């Protein structure tokens, strides 16, 4: 266990402010040299889809913001495989440049490896 903290993104990108709050938490931690691991599951997998058009609701693009993660030291993200399957999303449609995407077969087992878990 090299990392002690996992941040989980569970919500759709714009339905609430949780997706953005979670990202801010990751970026703040990374800036303090405490880069956490991240897992996208549930509706959180929608955050990884391109083609977001948040200008119409006067929001910044969360998808663009997420692409900055490698700059902050997060180069690999975990994605719950089952969450993708039940939503009919193919892994290949989730292209985030510069980031390695790892499908988690068993999200529960993954989560249990961490001492601290932040859920957004």
């Amino acid at each position: 266990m090299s990392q002690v903290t996992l941040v989980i993104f569970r919500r759709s990108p714009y339905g609430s402010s949780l997706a953005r709050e979670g990202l801010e938490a990751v970026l703040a931690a990374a800036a303090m040299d405490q880069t956490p691991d991240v897992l996208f599951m549930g509706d959180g997998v929608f955050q990884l889809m391109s083609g977001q058009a948040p200008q119409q609701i006067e929001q910044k693009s969360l998808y663009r913001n997420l692409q900055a993660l490698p700059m902050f030291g997060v180069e690999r993200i975990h994605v719950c495989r089952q969450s993708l399957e039940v939503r009919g999303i193919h892994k290949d449609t989730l292209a985030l440049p510069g980031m390695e995407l790892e499908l988690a077969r068993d999200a529960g087992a993954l989560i249990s490896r961490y001492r601290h878990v932040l859920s957004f």
Partner: protein
Amino acid sequence: MSKSITIEGREIPLDKEGYLRNLDDWSPAVAEYMATSEDIDLTEAHWEVLRLLQDFYRQFELSPAMRPLVKYVGQQLGADKGRSIYLMQLFPPSPARVASKIAGLPKPTNCL
């Protein structure tokens, strides 16, 4: 609290920490003004980093904190410039904060 500056005949609103309220208000003259208020004389080395910061913002829609800034500069301008000491010399005392301001970007949100 609101303040504003007048540059090239335009009144430009700033927030209470001196950052632009509207990113579209930025111009090189605004950068010169911001730099002067931070006691910095802008040279080509400064402009190079400022342009890069603006690229970063266009790409990711956020202002980088120190670590990502160092990494991005290293990727784009080479390893000898992608070091915090280099950026510290250009934009003391806090490169991410000071350079974002001069480049007309919002304060880095994760700049604690």
